[in-house]
């Protein structure tokens, strides 16, 4: 399928073949001026550092220009302009619109209103397709394939959009198994569990660690717990350090969408397991490949 002019709303809009093609482009170290004369709108209604900077970098590396804003201060949204009107305006200015928003489904709405293709850079707590592409790409490169591996997905699997997006993305492949490692109150909603097509199980990190090929770690935010004491009680079970990793397979890799706080100790960074900085670096080539393919 050609992505030209298409919206990128959910990772499930893509097939394995689509992603494979994207991965091959991203890994070909291509350079070019495919976006010369093009304008990318970066509409970040919610703050973000990494995602925004990597879209900016990807645009500049392809010779394109960008317009946009960060959060809502400094735009007329602060004066009460609706999201819909802002999108219509950007549609008139830009060749592609990258949207980040705290409301779920905001990117789909933008896509309905805009002629230009819309790329979802994270809306609400469920979808973040370009992050999922980067995550899959990291596994694809670092493990030479995505199928038949045992995955552990750890952290806030209920409100965290990266973990949910990653799990959904795995549906496109055939993992041997996915272990969901989360405190009870942060387990995925049934909406997500119902869609999982691979064998999965709730699990304890220490128990399943020796089986894992890929450990995907996300942050557990204190604010998610109604009772702070509960947070203090569980947080130790979701912390990774070098000592713990003695029990892991030698070639097990650890991913994290970043930013991390203290769920991964600094002493893990120098182990061969740590791939999260590489993962962050892959954000640029993947978004370059995507922009190159999507922008009309």
């Amino acid at each position: 399928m050609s992505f030209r002019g298409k919206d990128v709303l959910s990772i499930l809009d893509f097939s394995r073949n689509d992603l494979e093609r994207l991965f091959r482009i991203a890994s070909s170290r291509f350079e070019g001026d495919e976006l010369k004369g093009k304008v990318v709108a970066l509409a970040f209604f919610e703050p973000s550092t990494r995602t925004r900077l990597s879209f900016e970098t990807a645009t500049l590396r392809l010779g394109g220009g960008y317009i946009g804003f960060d959060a809502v201060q400094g735009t007329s949204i602060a004066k009460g302009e609706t999201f819909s009107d802002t999108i219509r305006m950007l549609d008139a200015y830009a060749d592609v619109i990258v949207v980040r928003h705290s409301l779920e489904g905001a990117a789909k709405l933008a896509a309905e209103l805009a002629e230009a293709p819309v790329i979802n850079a994270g809306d609400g707590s469920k979808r973040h397709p370009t992050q999922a592409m980067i995550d899959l790409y990291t596994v694809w490169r670092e493990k030479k394939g995505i199928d038949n591996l045992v995955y552990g997905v750890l952290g806030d699997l209920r409100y965290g959009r990266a973990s949910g997006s990653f799990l959904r993305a795995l549906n496109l492949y055939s993992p041997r198994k996915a272990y969901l490692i989360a405190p009870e109150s942060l387990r995925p909603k049934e909406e997500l569990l119902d869609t999982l097509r691979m064998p999965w199980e709730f699990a304890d990190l220490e128990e399943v660690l020796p089986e894992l090929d890929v450990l995907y770690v996300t942050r557990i935010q204190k604010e998610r717990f109604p009772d702070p004491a509960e947070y203090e009680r569980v947080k130790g079970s979701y912390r990774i350090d070098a000592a713990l990793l003695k029990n892991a397979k030698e070639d097990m890799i650890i991913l994290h969408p970043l930013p991390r706080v203290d769920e991964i100790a600094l002493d893990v960074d120098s182990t061969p397991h740590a791939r999260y900085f590489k993962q962050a670096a892959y954000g640029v080539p993947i978004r370059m490949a995507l922009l190159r393919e999507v922008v009309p």
Partner: protein
Amino acid sequence: MSEELVVRRISNGTVIDHIPAGRALKVLRILGITGEEGYMVSMVMNVYSKKLGKKDIVKVEGRELSSEEVNKIALVAPTATINIVRDYEVVEKRKVELPDRIEGIVRCVNPKCVTNAPREAVHPSFRVISRKPLKLVCEYCGEYLTEEEVIAQLAGT
């Protein structure tokens, strides 16, 4: 007393029969019939029915409602029968059938869903993923809407 004696026969139009007792007003609301359209609308509530014990009936004179228009009433009246009347005779009879998509009518229960944002150019829309029990999924945010939630929302109307 027979409903025939309560309501005059119509020459042409649509009779929605076998509506669960007490739901006729909700049916009219879902159909968007307010009475201001001009055609004659009559309604009987809580009449005796062999099949349902009690039922409601809605009759719309001068308009043949299409399946597409009528099917969404299956949310509150899954037992309803649509009768098309021409020249005082029933010429077509069909059961309502819940469509695969529901637009408007019910709201998404997720407060962070874009369809709940005020003043945005969007209407709630759902895909039907199960009919018995009824289960809808929001096309914008992916949240489920259960049968109880649908009934609770429509009860308030």
